[in-house]
Every structure is written in C-alpha cells, then in structure tokens.
C-alpha cells in the first residue's frame, strides 16, 4: 500500500541548493569548522572581546561616568613619570620572583617527601592541600591577625618563650611588610605546586630508577638525571601557572595591607583596582593592567620553551 511505502526520498527530489549544503557538510574541513565555531565564538566573546576592550580602555582617558576619548599612549607616558607606578612594578616583580622561587623549592621538596612510602599517606596529602582549598580571603584575614602589631600569635608565642621582648612589627615597615606578604603567598601557593609535582613524580617509571641504580647512580644523580628531566614538562606548566597567579595576586594584598605601608606592598593588580575603581580613573587603571601583559607573556613563553624540552627527554638534543 502506498501508505506503507518506505519514506525515503529519491535524491533527485531534494532541491539543488540543499544538495550543495549537504555535500559541504561531507567536507571534513567545513564540518570541522562548523563544529569548532561555538567554541571560537565563546572565546571571542568572553575572552578576546574583554581583552580588546581592556586595551582600548587603556588608551582612553575614561573616568567613572565618562566614556573618555582616545589618547593613544597618554596613560603609559603619564605612568612612566609616576614614582608610585615604578615602585609597584618593583614590588610586583620582587613578590613574583621570590614567592615563585620559594614555592617551587619548597613544593618540590614536599612532593619528593610525599612520594615516599609514608604512613597515612592519603591523610597527609589531604592536609597539604588545606591552604589551597581555604578561600583566599579567609586565609588573608587569618594572616592579617597573625601579622597584627598588637595581637600577633607569633609575637605572643615568642614573648612567652622569652625569645623577644617586643611585638614584631610585621607590616609596619616597608621591607617587613614585603617579606610578610610574600610568606603568606608562599604558604598559600605551596600545595598547588607540591600536589601537581607529586602527580608528575608518580608518572616516572620505577624501572628508570632501577636502571640508574644499576649503573651506579647515587641519590643526587638519580634526582639530577632521572627525576628532573622527566619532571621538567610538569615543572614548566606548574611554574607558569604559579608565576601567573602570583603576578596577578590581588586578594591577599587587598585584605592584609591594601598596598600599604607607603605603597610598599602595592602590586600592579591592586594599584590598577585602586586607580580605576576607588579613584575613578578607568583608563589609567586599565593601562596599569595592560602593562602587566608583557610580564605575563614572558611567563607563557617560558612555559612554551620549557615544554619543548620534551625532545631532550626523549634522547635528542635541545
């Protein structure tokens, strides 16, 4: 019966335009493009557009309530003559370099310790992660108390132990304050480095260590010639992230010092916020944020070249 006839349609009945469209979908390149289109659109709208807008804003004299006009590199020229800006660049670089180096050194040491056969291994690993899972603002407020010039638990303990006779002024002088906020950042950042490197360590085949031991390699040589090369791609990635997160740190500083005393702990992110939102100069604040990009790009390039070392790992030369 006609009603029970198969419902397929002869290709000759499909309009020519639709046939062309269907043929295009058969093309792997076209189909591939269409499939990645949503992801590309997402990236363009939510990443590229705000970034571009940020660059544009940095080239205007926009203030809160005024859209501003294009002034080219006016904000950057003005910032070049601003002593506070250069102090803040110095603070940011110092903060990033010292904190990242400490996080790497201590994180690697912790990862090597955790990679050994330890009792309660899972429990200890969970504890190590605690600083990382604590909300930053909460840990920052804790540090604010720990560093308090009148109520510091550290000073109190040292006084009770008879080691000092006066409360330590952790945040009351520029250099004390710098080291104190770096210490807070290191405390918070170590778990991320340690746990990631631990994951890397566990991917290294024990047979490599056995072979090295048979060849007469000592502990240091095993670390230098087996662990470190095998771990280098992970180190590159984890340190890139660590440097990026440290360089753009905001919450710790904002909660503990607000950039004081005398701008000694102001970082580029906090200065950018202070100038743009508190001070109302959106253009200048955006320009400070833009000025962070070269540093961040350098960190990404470090990662890129670090990852290339995989060839070295596989036996070929760098």
């Amino acid at each position, binding site marked *: 019966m006609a009603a029970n006839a198969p419902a397929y349609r002869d290709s000759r009945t499909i309009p020519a335009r639709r046939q062309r469209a269907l043929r295009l979908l058969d093309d792997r390149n076209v189909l591939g493009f269409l499939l990645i289109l949503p992801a590309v659109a997402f990236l363009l709208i939510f990443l590229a557009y705000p970034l571009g807008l940020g660059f544009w804003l940095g080239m205007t004299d926009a203030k809160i309530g005024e859209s501003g006009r294009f002034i080219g590199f006016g904000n950057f020229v*003005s910032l070049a003559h601003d002593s506070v800006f250069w102090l803040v660049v110095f603070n940011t670089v110092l903060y990033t370099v010292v904190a990242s180096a400490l996080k790497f050194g201590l994180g690697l040491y912790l990862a090597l310790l955790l990679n050994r056969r330890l009792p309660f291994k899972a429990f200890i690993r969970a504890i190590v992660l605690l600083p990382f899972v604590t909300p930053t603002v909460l840990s920052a407020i804790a540090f604010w108390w720990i560093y308090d010039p009148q109520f510091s638990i550290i000073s109190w303990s040292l006084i009770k132990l008879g080691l000092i006779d006066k409360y330590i002024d952790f945040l009351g002088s520029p250099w004390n304050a710098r080291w104190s906020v770096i210490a807070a950042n290191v405390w918070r950042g170590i778990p991320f480095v340690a746990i990631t490197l631990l994951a890397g360590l566990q991917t290294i085949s024990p047979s490599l260590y056995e072979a090295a031991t048979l060849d007469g390699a000592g502990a240091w040589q095993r670390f230098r010639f087996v662990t470190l090369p095998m771990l280098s791609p992970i180190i590159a990635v984890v340190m890139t992230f660590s440097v990026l997160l440290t360089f753009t740190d905001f919450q710790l500083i904002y909660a503990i010092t607000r950039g004081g005393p005398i*701008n000694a702990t102001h970082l580029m992110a906090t200065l950018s916020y202070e100038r743009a939102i508190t001070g109302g100069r959106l253009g200048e604040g955006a320009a400070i944020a833009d000025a962070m990009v070269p540093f961040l790009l350098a960190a990404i390039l470090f990662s890129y070249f670090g990852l290339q070392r995989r060839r070295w790992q596989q036996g070929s030369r760098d």
Partner: protein
Amino acid sequence: MLGITRRRVLQSGGAAGLMLLPGGAARAAPAWSGPAPEAGASIRVLRWKQFIQAEFDAFVANTKKFSDQTGVKVRVDAESWDDIRPKSAVAANVGAGPDIIMGTLDDPFKFPDKLLDLTDLAEYLGAASGGWYPVARKYGVHDKKWISLPQGATGGCLNYRISTMRAAGFDEFPKDTAGYLKLCQGLKKAGKPPGFALGHATGDANGWTQWCLWAFGGKTVDNNNNVVIDSPETVAALEYAKQLYQTYIDGVLSWLDPSNNKAFLADQISLTFNGISIYTVAKNSPDPALNAIAADMDHANMPIGPIGRPTEQQNILSTYAYAYTKYPNAVREYLRFMWEKPQIDYWETQSNGYIAPPLPAWNDNPVWTADPKVTPFRDVLKFALDDGYSGGLGSASAAVMGDFVVVDMFAEACTGNKSPKDAAHDAAERVKRYYSA
C-alpha cells in the same frame, strides 16, 4: 504620566506656617509644592549596607509609610560603600539602573550631567530646617544646581579614655593642637599611648591626616584647583604630625580601618579617631571589662590648629537620583518624605545617633543629648571641610583620596622615610597628575 512642572519653594503666609524667631520677627515656614507622584510609579533605591540593623529597619519602615501614603512602590537594595561606587558609575554610563542611589562623598560629582536636578527640593528642605551646613551644601551643589541631597555623615571623633587623660595631667580634652600634642605625649608617658591609622585605611587614616593638613593651613589645591600642597603650611603640618607619631603605639603604619577599634577595646590605646562604633560595642557588650572601658571613655571633636577654625574630614553620605528615571516626581516626593523631620527623627532614634545631621534643625533629637558622650558626633558636619578642599569636588579630588596621596605623605614624613619637605614635594607631583589630566 504627569509632566515635570517647575516646583517652587513657597513662603506660605498661613497660620500653620508661621514660625516665631527668637528675635521676635515672624518668618513664614516654607511649604513644598512639588507635583504628586506619577500614577503607578515604581522606583528603585540602592543604598549603603547597614552597619546597624535597627537603622535599616527604620529606613525600610519609613519607606513603607511613604508607599502606603502615596501608592508608589519602592524597592530598597543595600550594598557596601565600595560596591556602590562602580554601580553608580555603570548606571550613569548606560542610563539604566536604580532611580536613587545613597552613596558617599563626591561620587555624584563624577557624572553631574546624568543626575536629576534636586535644586527646588534641596532649597525647600534647607529653608524648612534653618539652612544646610556649608560643607553639606558643598557636597550638594554643582554649578549652582543641587545634584545631591546630603544625608549626613558617619561621623568620626576623637575617642579617649578619661582616666588616662587625667593621668596625663588634663582635666578636660584640649581644644587646640598645642595642647593636643602635650596630651598625646602625656598619654604615652602614662603607659597607654594614642593610636592613629597610617596604613591605607580609608576612613580613619584620611580622617586624621586631612584634619592635620588643614589645621595648619595646608591643602591639596586652592580655590581654582591649582596644586598647592607643596607649601610651608604643609611642612608645618608634617613636622607636627611627626611629633604626634612619636607618641603613637607601634605598628600604626600597617593599621587598616578596624585596627584601632581592636586596640582600643583591648585596652592598649587611650586615644584614637573613630566613629561611635567603639563606644557602642563596649557599652552593649556582655563583657564587664568592655563595659568598664565604655564608662571610662568619652569623645571630643578634633582640636583647632593655627588656622584658627575647625578642619575636620568626615565621611559624608550623598543621595542622588538619575535623570533617566521614569518617575522624577515620585523620586522627589520620596526624597522629600524621607528627609522630613518626623521620618528623620524616627530614623535617627533607631540608629542611636549613627548619622550626624547635615541640617542643624535635626540636632534637637534627644538621641544626641540623652547620653552626653554621643553629643560630639552630632556636630561633626558643623566642623567639617570637603575633600579636595579648597578646590572643587570631582574625579580629581576623588582620585587623590582614592590613591591615599595625603596619607602616604604623612606616613613618609612621620616615619622619616622622607623629610617633610620632600614628602610634600612628592605628594604635589602625585596630585598634579590628577588635576592636570
């Protein structure tokens, strides 16, 4: 929708409006003649987040009373001061958002053209209440037009311990800067020093450093917005502050706004600059030690410097409405209702004197005199100058304060990080960046 008609401040000659003045002259009380709210009006208010729940509840109760009387729906949202600033800017930029914002300081001066003209209302309220304090008028008027209604100030005063003051050889709080320095030195000798924030503490650090700068005749800019902070007067203020700093408790360079509250309540300092919160906490605490501090503390207005008149800096609350509102009449009527004495009296009583009045006529509320320790907070706007004094309010004055230029200058000079002369010179360079842009 009703058209916006010109409102006038009428001098009514009716018996109800007659007010006999002390001099015997009869003056007619002004009457409000603004148009009624638009039919079906609905407005949104974004205000600062409450620190005292009873204050917010009273505000909401007043609002409900207005809605019941007029049929105008009012939605009240509350955000922290820091969050209101960007939101008010976005509303001004995009032309949509709350109809009314209750924020702080010079925010409305960043977008005066986007705001509803409140001139007639402000002049009416001023005339009905004996005139605005000069500083309140300064925060309300832009280019001869009222763009903002001052709501008052979360006033700051000197909080001191009576017993330590007496131990330092003073029976009453000194009224001038010379006596004040001697008191600070005496307090340190008595073992309970003063403590004043010198970190990036928006309220407390700006409060005392700006006072000190102005007390000695220093200022960031002159009447024409020329930068004049690098002056002998500023250097004198810094030299004076340096002597004060030597009497302070250790660590004030890192103090943020809550730090002095903690130190005062922990019985570690005997003098600081703060709002009424220390006293309120100590008085209402179940802890007898804190009750004892409340009993032994009092408040004073800032001393007068060589300039010979009060020079306080206060956190002034500004209320403004946007020109984009669909219901300008309802907005004005709401503001009028909320600023009228019966509503204000109820609100102030419930707030326990949290907001210092911008109009002297509001001073007769018993909340200010029932406890004499609260009275100094009542008068802070009588003694205050505006930020960016003596220039105009706007984005430059806001930016200088936001960048802590004056606080940093004092911190540098007090700690010996820079000489007072160098600190003043460097501060001038920083201020110029904002005023020349």
